[in-house]
């Protein structure tokens, strides 16, 4: 089944290849790599800022529609410049120094959090041929890097010399460490199916169908577990105990203001994007278009939609689900949060791995 013929027109490797040959013609090979790195870095910075701004706007609109409201609608058409106005406000705000806080760690924490979310962006395949580094342990790398942000949160909570912050950070630590397990195990399910940890290989393996369809019930279960656990891992409602505003005012970032607060805020939204992108890549086929069996005509039409569009629409579908969670459920208590992980998610995903191993062994998947 050769379905990738027509999607080649959107292959980004031709573009990147062209840039590489153009640069090699002008300078030495070392300089080429350096220039390319700078270019990629700039591209990611731009994407990071734009995505962050858009996600904040998207969240506000989604929650407004759920709550029978209109949402931001004053700044620009439909309020699209609202988040930019907010960003300008945050940039202009005073950075309040906290007496008796640990100055170095207090200032370091937001950078750790934002760097961790930045690192994970590199390994994600955005489209055919558009991926900064294609690690052969891509899934592992993204998980490892995204779980580093707990260090920043703990530092923020400890160094700001506030009881609310400390409680929030401790909760966050317990939460992220335990939910990391379930995220890992649910992703492991697909790794078992694919036999590879390389994200590009996982995407390629879904050319004839996404894993959530191909993998029968076990894949679906691991998708649900992944959704719940990753929502918890990025500290979003209903698992936002770390910043539960009706209990701890703002949790670990109570004492932060201005741009440092904006870093935490932006990192939270980018983490949401990263887990959604990872989920879309692993379970929903990444940039692969939607194909149905032998419907050649239908598949041809699907191929004409660019792979970038596929990737981002799948990602935003998962983001929408995560937002739907947040705006429906009340928050869990800390003991219930841990009960959910250790009593429900972990045994289920362990059993699920067993089921998948059996399925793969018997060759029951497509």
């Amino acid at each position, binding site marked *: 089944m050769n379905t990738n013929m027509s999607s080649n027109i959107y292959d980004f490797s031709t573009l990147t290849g062209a840039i590489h040959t153009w640069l090699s013609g002008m300078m030495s090979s070392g300089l080429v790599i350096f220039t390319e790195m700078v270019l990629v870095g700039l591209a990611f910075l731009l994407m990071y800022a734009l995505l962050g701004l858009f996600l904040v706007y998207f969240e506000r609109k989604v929650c407004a529609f759920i709550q029978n409201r209109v949402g931001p609608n004053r700044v620009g058409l439909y309020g699209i410049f609202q988040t930019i106005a907010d960003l300008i406000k945050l940039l202009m705000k005073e950075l309040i120094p906290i007496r008796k806080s640990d100055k170095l760690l207090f200032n370091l924490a937001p950078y750790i959090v934002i760097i961790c979310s930045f690192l994970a962006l590199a390994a994600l395949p955005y489209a055919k041929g558009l991926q900064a580094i294609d690690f052969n342990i891509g899934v592992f790398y993204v998980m490892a890097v995204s779980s580093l942000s707990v260090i920043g949160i703990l530092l923020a909570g400890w160094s700001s010399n506030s009881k609310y912050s400390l*409680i929030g950070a401790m909760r966050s630590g317990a939460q992220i460490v335990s939910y990391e397990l379930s995220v890992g195990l649910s992703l492991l399910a697909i790794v078992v199916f694919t036999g590879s940890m390389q994200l590009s290989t996982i995407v390629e393996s879904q050319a004839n169908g996404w894993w959530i369809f191909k993998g029968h019930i076990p894949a679906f279960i691991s998708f649900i577990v992944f959704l719940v656990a990753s929502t918890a891992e990025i500290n979003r409602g209903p698992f936002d*105990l770390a910043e539960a*505003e*009706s209990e701890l005012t703002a949790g670990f970032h109570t004492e932060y203001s201005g741009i440092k607060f904006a870093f935490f805020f932006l990192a939270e939204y980018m983490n949401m994007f990263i887990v959604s992108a990872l989920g879309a890549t692993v379970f929903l086929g990444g940039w692969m278009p939607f194909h149905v069996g032998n419907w050649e005509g239908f598949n041809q039409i699907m191929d004409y939609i660019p792979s970038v569009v596929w990737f981002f629409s799948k990602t935003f579908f998962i983001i929408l689900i995560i937002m739907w969670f947040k705006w*429906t*459920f*009340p928050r869990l208590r800390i*003991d219930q949060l841990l009960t959910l992980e250790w009593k429900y998610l972990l045994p289920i995903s362990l059993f699920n791995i067993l089921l998948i191993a059996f399925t793969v062994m018997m060759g029951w998947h497509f």
Partner: protein
Amino acid sequence: MMSEEIIKDVIIGENEDYIINMGPQHPSTHGVLRFEVCLKGETVKYLIPHIGYIHRGIEKMCESLTYPQIIHLTDRMDYFSAHMNNEAVCLVVEDAMQIEVPERAKYIRTILDELGRLASHQLWWCAFGMDLGALTAFFYGLRDREHILDIFEESFGSRLLHSYVMPGGLMHDVHPNFQNRIKEFIKYFRKKLPEYDQLLTGNVIFQNRTKGIGYMSKETAIGYGVTGPSARGSNYSCDVRKLAPYGAYDKVQFNESLMTEGDTFARYQVRMKEMWESLSIIEQLVDNIPADDYTAKMKPIIKLPAGEYFRRVETVRGELGVYVVSDGNKSPLRIKFRTPNFSNLFVMNEITPDIKLPI
């Protein structure tokens, strides 16, 4: 030699109190009170309420105001049960002067009481949801409350603090649209109320958060003088509407909502049941408002005969007692409001220990 005690005390700090403040600027207390919460880990060891942040000296002010003027201050004591507070003062004055209130006024007062109860319970529901982290509940509750506030605004001109009940009856007659609007609202709200149940009551997270939390026994409730829905969750029958009916409560059929569990979820369910009861009370009354005068003939200056008077009404949060000492002048010598929240609040220290921090 360091004994184990010293190690525990000084080095680990086991007996040291870890105190955090909930309020007065904390998002869950809205500037009205402060809880001094002592924690052990995430568990509450003890909790001390501090009140008085919005104490306005109403009792002192009342000593220099006439009775109709006092009524506009009682709105502000608990602005979600403004009508009931007004009515309590009016009942005292009417008792003392032995005025027969026209039936029409009684019916309308009762309808307004129940509408106020509904509006307050809606706001309670949405704020409760918000405090638990379900922010959408907040907007659904406010959306439905708006309909009641519109009814209020059409008839009395203000949405929250409508000093509408006067000694002897009402300030002026209700708007001709009053009955129709209420019927429309009942039809609308009967459809929306089951959604409340689906969104929060049935939710497994919500039930786990509220069940078994803050257990209050009936004896504790009586001892601390807890009244209203909070006490009825502990199977303590204390509804003044049943015990000593005032207004038109003796003409309607309704059940006192009681639960036996005594925890937060029971108190929640009592209030949800009360919303259904309020709807049915309003339904029974709204068609039968007699055509009558809206107020009895009153003298322009109201002077209470010397003596002491005490009346109780059931507000949204419990029993409101008004104790008036009059020396025959047009303003009272002493007026004391036994507000329900004052008593309800201080039971907090009794029921909160040993529960996890998100109360």
